[in-house]
């Protein structure tokens, strides 16, 4: 299993647009990907789950990836968070 944490810098939090971008990125991989914030966990491949976390600016999220391509997925997802959130 791979994991990383990230503090959201986007001033609107994880709103619809970037949520779409990270979910689309997660879906490119076979591994299961989950995101946790304020004690709640959602599937990072399900946009309603991700938006439902209602993550705000300045909050930390942790992302865990498990599966055959977890290495590549972790690198790609961290980059996606950094570039979009």
């Amino acid at each position, binding site marked *: 299993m791979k994991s990383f944490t990230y503090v959201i810098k986007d*001033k*609107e*939090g994880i*709103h*619809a*647009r970037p*949520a*779409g*971008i990270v*979910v*689309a990125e997660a*879906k490119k991989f076979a591994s299961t990907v989950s995101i946790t914030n304020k004690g709640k966990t959602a*599937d990072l*491949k*399900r*946009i*309603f*789950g991700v*938006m*439902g976390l*209602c993550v*705000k600016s300045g909050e930390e999220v942790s992302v865990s990836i498990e599966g055959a391509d977890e290495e590549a997925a972790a690198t790609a997802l961290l980059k996606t968070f950094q570039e979009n959130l």
Partner: protein
Amino acid sequence: MKTYSGTRVFEGYALGKIAVYSAKKVEKTAGKGKEKEFARFEKAREETVSALEQSFLETLAKLGEKEAQLFETHKLMAQDLDFEDAVKGELENDVSAEYAVMAAGDNLAMIFAQMDDEYMKARVNDVKEVASRIVSFLGEEEGGFVLKEPSIILCDDLPSSELMKLDKEMILGIVFAKGSPNSHVSILTRMMEIPSLCGIEGLEVTPSLQGSFAILDASKGDFIVSPESKTVTAYSKKKDEYEKNKAKLQAYKGKPTLTKDGKSVQIYNNIASSFEVENALRNDAEGIGLFRSEFIYLEAKDYPSEEEQFEHYKRVVEAMGEKQVIIRTLDIGADKKIDYFDLPEEENPALGFRSIRICKARPEIFAAQLQALYRASAYGNLAVMVPMIISESEIKWIHEMAKLARENLAARKLPFNKDMKIGIMVETPAAAIMSDVFAKRVDFFSIGTNDLSQYTLAIDRVNPNLASSFNPHHRAICRLIKLATENAHAAGIPIGICGELARDEKLLPFFLKIGVDELSVSPAYTLSLRAQIATIDTKDVDVDSFIS
């Protein structure tokens, strides 16, 4: 001829035939078995996804990546497994795929509606839009909404994907009978600069209106159906002038506001919601002179929390960057009523329980608002003004409340600007007459000419029988404005005008001559006012002619 009025989404004029857009109505009907219905859903979803991919590309080409990304998000919503599970769940009850999709969409939308976040609440529309898009592909008939000739679109609400599919050349204007200026489609409408209104009172969207001639005056907020021919002629002229003028005025963008003899004045904007800030920026306003905070209270079902207010204020303050934003504290009562405030009926509401008077009686409301404002002050150049002031004791009370708000935030370790400017509105004769005393106690004045006129003349400004006697050029009003301006300057504080009168052609030379520092008008008038000011030489203005 019938005239309706609504809320402006984007200013401008349109004259033309109405094209009615109506979303498909979905009834709860039995399906042909859950496997068959699910297969229909899958096929429609596939078509929706490829249509959304097209919308993405069209929007990318027309407006750029940021706006287009939302269609990518819609696509992910359509493909979402939670959504699919919800549809499957509905299909267990042997309903049609149409009904299952709408019900699943409504259920997911509810989750967003319940979130304690204004932005997420607004996403309810995205979810519903995706669901109705899938439903539209479930239908038998092909095609969809197309404009065969240039038209004014009339709809309850329009999915943004439908808007992007249309040929922009064919859209003269849009009337969203329901809708909010905050929806995604409204934002796109503004980006595309299409004259449009939303939230039209008493207008029912029926197919019978299809093809009727109509006039849309989105600058004023009027929608006129089946106008008389003389009205058409008048508006046609107005529209031409507006467009010619608009093109000419672009030259004033990015320029400072100066009179012919080089006197500088600032043009600010009056806005009624945090979403109108885009209009102010596009029209090159030098600041926001009046942000009506009431809209946050009017849209809410209960007292808005500090957090909710903070988000709205912060959005405006951040969007304006270094430019000043003056937010007016709660101004309700009189003609503006809110249910949950549970205000008593009054015989004479204009002279009654309103704005600061309500705040003083219910200090917890004012405290929450001040805390939200102070918090937003950390994010830009924010100033606060309080309406309906008549006495020094009110000003003293405001300062005490401000001190408490600062202490509250300091204890909570939240950032704020401790020197945030606090000003008052001069909109009662009492405030104007006492302005020498008040000027020493506050950071700025802002003259509210609508109320100042009605209180000075003792004429109800909405009484149609008195409309002809209501003379805002009355010398008594000009004297009060001059008095307040002189007293502000003697105390070294700035003074602005934020009422309708700020762009009054006749009084403009007077305001410039006496040295009013800032004029605040609706975004649409910013550039024309700058152009007009450039033609005035204050050396030629005779102040006496306005006051004696």
